[in-house]
């Protein structure tokens, strides 16, 4: 009987020794991808009796696409202003005196259901010592026009699934493509949303600063973004996925398609942007061969994601 007991003890030691733990899959994707689902006040400023509050996801302006909610409140009556025409203009000033903007909604629309003005801004760079962002907001209340401005801080986009790219197309126009969603992709078919914006080259000389005509951007319409997602890591050998759908414009002005991620990790969305006539504005076809050990070739036009 003693030998049995020894055997049991020996077995006990063997069995309780360490093994590889199972992956906590829910935690796995959550750990790397911050998601912003709450609108919080990112900046507020007052002009006379009016307080302007701009809300962004997580209360932060990030590089890339930002949906913005703007509220104007009369601090004396505590009433929201809803009937005004509200203009919105972000300006990036560099130390050499150069002033540029980024894709944005100049005339904000009022959302009566939620009681705020809706707009967006695609900040093309982070705030830095040499680059500072300033918001110029104009509105009318009590038949008086208010123009106010405030410095803001644009932070690094820590969610790698909301990256953007800015480029000059073959038509010599300046474009910006920014990912809008999904914020938190999963291994599955993900609805992919992106905005495509174009800088409208001013036709008239600049008026008094800030002259919105000098900083005008618009959503391009009728374009197509051809999509070829691939894993660029050499170890993944240019791996891709099936059932992806090219992005086309929907009623909201944004471009919608489907990206199918087969596993977590680094992905590159290889894009080809075509105009209404099917002409390629930017982007190249990438090799489809499986090339293990070789870093995947990216299109001329691409956006990286990571989850």
């Amino acid at each position, binding site marked *: 009987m003693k030998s049995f007991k020894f055997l049991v003890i020996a077995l006990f030691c*063997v069995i*309780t020794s360490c093994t*590889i733990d199972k992956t906590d899959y829910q935690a*796995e994707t959550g750990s790397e991808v911050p998601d912003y689902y709450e609108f919080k006040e990112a900046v507020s400023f007052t002009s006379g009796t009016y307080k302007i509050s701009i809300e962004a996801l997580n209360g932060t302006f990030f590089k890339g696409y930002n949906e913005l909610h703007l509220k104007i409140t009369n601090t004396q009556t505590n009433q929201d202003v809803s009937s005004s025409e509200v203009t919105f203009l972000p300006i990036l000033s560099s130390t050499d005196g150069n002033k540029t903007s980024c894709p944005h909604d100049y005339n904000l629309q009022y959302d009566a259901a939620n009681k705020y003005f809706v707009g967006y801004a695609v900040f093309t760079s982070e705030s830095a010592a040499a680059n500072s962002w300033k918001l110029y907001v104009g509105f009318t209340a009590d038949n008086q026009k208010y123009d106010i401005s405030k410095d803001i801080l644009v932070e690094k986009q820590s969610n790698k699934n909301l990256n953007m790219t800015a480029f000059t197309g073959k038509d010599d126009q300046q474009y910006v493509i920014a990912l809008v969603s999904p914020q938190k992709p999963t291994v*599955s078919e993900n609805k992919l949303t992106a905005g495509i914006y174009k800088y409208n080259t001013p036709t008239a000389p600049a008026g008094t600063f800030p002259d919105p005509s000098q900083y005008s951007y618009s959503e391009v319409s009728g374009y197509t973004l051809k999509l070829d997602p691939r894993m660029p890591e050499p170890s993944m050998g240019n791996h891709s996925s099936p059932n992806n759908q090219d992005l086309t414009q929907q009623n909201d002005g944004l471009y919608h398609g489907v990206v199918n991620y087969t596993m977590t*990790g680094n992905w590159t969305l290889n894009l080809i942007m075509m105009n209404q006539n099917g002409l390629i504005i930017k982007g190249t076809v990438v090799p489809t061969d499986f090339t293990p*050990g070789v870093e995947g070739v990216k299109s001329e036009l691409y956006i990286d994601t990571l989850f």
Partner: protein
Amino acid sequence: MKYIIILLFLGMSVTAQNTHAHHDSIKNLEEVQVKNAAKKKIETEMKMAVSVDEFLSSSDNISFIKRGAYAWEPLLNNMSSERSTLTIDGMHIFGACTDKMDPVTSYVESNNLSTIDIKSGQQGSLHGATVAGSIDLKRKSTPFGLEKKWNGAYQSGFEFNNKQFFNLGNVAYSGEKFVAEGSISYRKADDYYDGNNNEVKHSQYKKFNTSLGFAYKTTDLSSVRVDAIFDMAKDVGYPALPMDLSLSRALITSASYKQLFEEGVVKVVDTKVYFNAIEHYMDDTTRPENLVHMDMPGWSTTYGLVSKANLKKNRYSSEIQLNAYDNLSIAEMRMYPQDRSKRTMFAYSWPWVTTRYGGLSMNNSWDLSEKSQINLGGSLGVNYNYSKYVEFNWIFHPGAPQEKTRFLPSLHAGYNLDIDHFNFSVGTGYGHRAPSVSEGYGYYIYNSFDRYDYIGNPDLKNEISYEGNASAGFKNEKLSIQGKINYFYIENYIIGRVLSMGSPMNYQSVGVKGYTSLDYATLLNMSMNVSYDILPHLHWKGVLTYARGMDDQGGNLPFIRPLSYQTSLHFMHKNFGIQTSVNGDFQQINYSPEYGEDLTSAYTIWNISADYNFKINKVRTVVQVGAENLLNEYYSTYADWGNIPRMGRNIFTSLKFNF
């Protein structure tokens, strides 16, 4: 934690059951056998110290896919392992490796088995839904009240080719009311050498196996029994695969209650609950040629119940079996980027797939006369699958259901006739099987044979088999001839087909294949066995087998054994025995390039061995010396994964004591 509780329980049962061992027995519990199965010892004619794989390969209708020297995948009737049910004493166990590196047979050892029960086709449906048949590994079970209370055996040996050294030991105590048995074994082998004396790298292995069993007779006609097997393999090389095994462990436990009845139709009811857990950790860090490192751990946990009743009345006898189990299969893939500090890439190759099966099976036989017998049987099972992370399955099959329930009916009938020295049998069968976890829910499972990544399809239809079989034989004192034939027509035959839309993921892969159903496939198996006693102590035996498998386009199915033969001579004189055998395959003409096969040439292997029996102080001792592949032929068979060469000349020695 679960393991610990079970072990504690086992530990307690050791001390608890030991106290009541008094003598009052009338009946020998194990003697009552309603149906007597032909018991085989776990040894082949050539070799007495065989591994489970080597023993299985001595059966006519078993062939093997070999990925190295260890853990061969048994093919029954030339069909891959998901088409047969593989059980240990009726317990369902599922390997935890997506690449089938751990068939169930790799978790047992020859010294804890008494026999292996192979049933072809639907006759094997007793253990659950099947197409090819069933392989049931029967554990050793010592009867109560043996005259000799203590029995034991110790076996050791050395094989020169791969420096395999093994030690196998088992003891059993048989009391009137209490039986205890245990076994322990350890095998260690280095790389083997092929027929050109080249080392086949990554073919080493280490395997440790131990088992314990206790039985207690509760009344004259009833007993309880608890059993456990623990198996651990470490540092196992798979030369045909791009990765090895760093560790695999299995804990296989069961508790059963057996009740005999002296009167009435029901003779025995044997009910068992079981639990088994398997862990399997692949390792590719041992392969410097791999630029990519990938972790692929797998887990498989099964709970189950098997309850069996034997009925007998006059000329009618019947077996009824209830099978129920719940299995959870998990396999992960984690790939590392070149820059290790960066984020790894992760996917499930088995996305937490639950399989639940419940089924009732029945085998009935009527003796119409002394000479003829009719067998009728069938089963009805319900198979339920659930994929927890179904999003992985949706990548290739958008909108596929997360849960799926299937009904798996089966029927079989047979007729046996014995006339003088002749015997004949005919039979037919019909049965469904559900797709396996890999076929239904697998995700980028790399198959290094055809170098494709395989994707499962949750919407696959049941595979439906229609079979017919026949045999004829003649036997007299000196000569015995037996011919067997079976034919399967399998509807919705599941096999991988190239998916144009997929892009490979695994490093060595060339493309993606999805499991799809062919309209049908057909399989024909034939075998001929002849034995002749030339002299009272000189016996000759010959076996010839042939198989042919075709898909619905008339193309060849993969892994179908070409025409093969085996012939052996066995001579005994007093305590001395010598045997020699020649076996081989003809050229594999009907190979399938579509599934990565190429033409495999014919080969012939010559083996020889001699043994001597003697007694040292009542201890029966056998020594054996022999050589496999005596002529050191360089060869690989049709089912050798990646055409890896088989072992060259191997001189083996073994020594066995029975006390």
